[in-house]
C-alpha cells in the first residue's frame, strides 16, 4: 500500500459517493444518451459499488424543453429502465422548482427513483418547501441543493441551508455549478452549514472541474464536515465535467476515506464505457476554463458555442458577458439573446 501518513486526519471517515454522469453528463452529450447506454453504465456502476446514481435529462425532471433540449427518451423511460436493474444502488433524480413539478416527482418515484436533489439558486431556497416536503412524504432520500453557491457568502449559505432543513431536507449540498470555488471558499461554506444544521443533517458537495479543483474542493468539503460527494465517472458532466469519480475514489483510498467503491472496477467503467461515449473530450479547455474563471453556470458551455457559431461572436466573449450580467442556471435563453445583442453591437446582425 501507498503511504497514508500525511492525511491521517480523514482516515476512517465514511463518505457517500453519488454519480452524476447519467444526468449532468447528459449536458455534455446534448441529452443524447440512449436508454440502453444508461442501463449499461448504471449496471456497471452498481457492480462497482456506487451507492447512488442520478439519471434522466440534464435539467432533471421537466427538463425536456426547447430551452434545455429534448432527450432521446422520456425521464420515466430512463428511470423505469435503470431502476429494476440495480442490485444495491439507489436511483436519484434532480428537481429544480420552476422547471420540474411535484407531478413529475411523483411519476419519477412511481418509476423507481428513491432519492432526489431538490435544487434552487443559492439565494432562493424558499422556492423549494413544497417539493422537499413532498419528497419526504414519498419517503425519498431528500437533498436540498444550493446551486451557484459562489454567489452567496458562507453566512448566506448557512441561512438558506437551514431553510431547506426546516422544509425536511435530510442533506444540504453546496453546489459549485460554475466550477469557480477554491478550497477555502468550500470550507467556509460547508463549515458555516455544519455550525447551524442539526447534527443528523448531512452535508454534501457537488463540484465542477472548470479550474481543475474538483478533487481538491471535494476533499476540502470533507475536511469541513461533508459526508456526501457528487462526481461523474470520467468526469462526464457539464463544462469541464464534474469531479472525476474514479480519480476521487483513488484519492479517498490513499487518504483512508471509506467509500465502499471498487476502485479498479470504476476505473474500468471510466475507460471502457464512458470515454468512448464522449462526443468531445470533457476537459478544461478555453471555454470551460472561462466558465470557471468568470463564474458562469457550466451548462451554458455548449449553448454558448452554438450561439457563437450562429452569430459570429466568440463563445468566450458571450460567457464573460453572461457572467457580468449575473445570469444563473436555467437562463439558457439569455445566451442566444446575449449573442444577438453583441452581434448587433458589432454590426454583424
Amino acid at each position: 500500500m501507498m503511504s497514508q501518513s500525511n492525511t491521517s486526519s480523514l482516515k476512517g471517515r465514511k463518505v457517500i459517493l453519488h454519480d452524476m454522469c447519467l444526468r449532468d453528463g447528459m449536458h455534455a452529450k446534448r441529452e443524447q444518451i440512449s436508454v440502453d447506454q444508461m442501463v449499461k453504465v448504471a449496471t456497471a456502476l452498481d457492480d462497482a459499488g456506487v451507492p447512488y446514481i442520478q439519471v434522466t435529462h440534464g435539467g432533471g425532471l421537466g427538463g425536456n424543453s426547447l430551452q434545455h433540449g429534448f432527450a432521446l427518451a422520456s425521464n420515466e423511460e430512463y428511470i423505469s429502465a435503470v431502476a429494476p436493474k440495480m442490485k444495491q444502488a439507489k436511483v436519484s433524480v434532480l428537481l429544480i422548482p420552476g422547471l420540474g413539478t411535484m407531478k413529475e416527482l411523483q411519476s419519477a418515484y412511481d418509476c423507481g427513483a428513491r432519492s432526489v436533489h431538490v435544487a434552487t439558486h443559492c439565494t432562493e431556497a424558499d422556492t423549494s418547501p413544497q417539493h422537499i416536503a413532498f419528497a419526504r412524504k414519498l419517503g425519498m432520500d431528500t437533498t436540498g441543493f444550493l446551486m451557484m453557491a459562489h454567489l452567496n457568502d458562507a453566512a448566506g449559505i448557512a441561512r438558506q441551508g437551514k431553510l431547506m432543513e426546516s422544509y425536511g431536507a435530510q442533506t444540504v449540498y453546496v453546489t459549485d455549478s460554475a466550477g469557480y470555488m477554491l478550497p477555502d471558499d468550500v470550507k467556509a461554506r460547508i463549515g458555516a452549514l455544519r455550525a447551524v444544521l442539526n447534527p443528523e443533517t448531512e452535508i454534501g458537495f457537488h463540484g465542477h472541474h472548470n479550474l481543475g479543483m474538483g478533487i481538491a474542493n471535494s476533499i476540502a468539503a470533507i475536511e469541513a464536515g461533508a459526508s456526501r460527494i457528487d462526481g461523474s465517472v470520467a468526469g462526464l458532466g457539464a463544462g469541464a465535467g464534474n469531479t472525476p469519480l474514479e480519480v476521487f475514489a483513488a484519492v479517498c483510498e490513499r487518504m483512508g476515506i471509506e467509500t465502499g467503491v471498487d476502485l479498479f472496477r470504476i476505473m474500468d467503467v471510466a475507460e471502457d464505457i464512458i470515454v468512448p461515449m464522449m462526443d468531445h473530450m470533457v476537459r478544461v479547455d478555453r471555454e470551460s476554463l472561462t466558465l470557471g474563471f468568470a463564474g458562469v453556470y457550466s451548462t451554458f458551455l455548449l449553448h454558448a458555442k452554438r450561439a457563437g457559431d450562429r452569430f459570429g461572436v466568440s463563445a468566450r466573449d458571450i460567457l464573460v458577458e453572461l457572467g457580468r450580467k449575473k445570469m444563473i442556471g436555467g437562463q439558457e435563453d439569455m445566451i442566444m439573446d446575449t449573442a444577438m445583442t453583441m452581434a448587433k453591437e458589432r454590426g454583424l446582425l
Partner: protein
Amino acid sequence: MKKIRCALIGSGNIGTDLIYKIQRSPVLEPVWMVGIDPESEGLARARDMGLKTTAGGVDGLLPHVLEDNIQIAFDATSAYVHAENSRKLNALGVMMIDLTPAAIGPLCVPPVNLRQHADKVEMNVNMISCAGQATIPIVNAVSRIQSVEYAEIVASLASKSVGPGTRANLDEFTYTTSSAIEKVGGARRGKALAIINPAEPPMIMRNTISCLTDDEPDHVRITESILQMIGEVQKYVPGYRLVNGPIYDGNKVQVFMEVAGLGDYLPKYAGNLDIMTAAATRTAEMFAEEILAGRIQLKAVEIA
C-alpha cells in the same frame, strides 16, 4: 365625467400599485381598500390616498357596496379566499377581476380575448399570472397566423419582485401558466418555465417565447403579427419591449422580450407585477367603458 367605482381587496404591493393605476384612469375610481390587519401599512397608505378602508375582510365591505355603488372589485389576496370573496360580491352585482391563481372565471389576456369577455358580461375574469400576461399575447400572435403545435415560455424574474405566496407555490404558477398558453395562447401544448434571479441591481423582467408551428412558418406574416401585438400590449404596458427576434430556425419562432414597469408603487424592474396590475386595470376599463356607454349591464349572480 362619470366613473365606475371600484373596491380593491388585498392591501399588499399589488393592491397599492392598483390604486395608482386606477386613479389615473378616465373611467375608474378607487373607493374602497379591503385588508385584514388594522395595523397594516397598506391600509394606512390607502387611507392617505383618500380611499375608505376596512380591516374586516370582504365582509367589512359588503354593507357598503350598494350605498357606495361599487361595481368592480379587484382581488389581490390568495387563491384560497378568492372563491368566497367572489361569491359574496357577485351576489351584489359586483364584477370581479381575479389577480390570484384561483381562476374560477375565464382567463383574460386583454389584447387577445378581453373584448369577448366584456361582450358576454362575464362576472369574474382571471388574470392568469405575470408570465402569462407577458407571453401569451406573443403565442397568440403566432397561432392566429399558423397553427402552433407547442409553445414554451421562459420568464426570468428579479428575486425582489417575487413574493412569498408565489415562492411557496411555484408549481401552481407553472400549471396555471402552461394551461393558459394552450387555452388563450392557442398552442396545442404549452410549457412555462420560471427563473428567479437575485442579481443586484435587480434585473428587469425578461421573457423568451418559443413556438413550434406545424408547417414552415411564414416569416413575413408572423413577424408582422408579432409586432402588431406588441403595439397592442404597449398601449397599457409602455415598458413592454422587443429586445431580439423574432428569429426563425426551421419551424421554431423565438422572441426575446423585456418588461419594465411604470414605477408607480412597484419598482421599474418589477415589470412582472406591473403587467398584472396594468392588465387588470385595462380589463376593468373595458368593462367600465361598456357600462358607461350603456352597452352592458352587470347583473347580480344568484347564489345557488
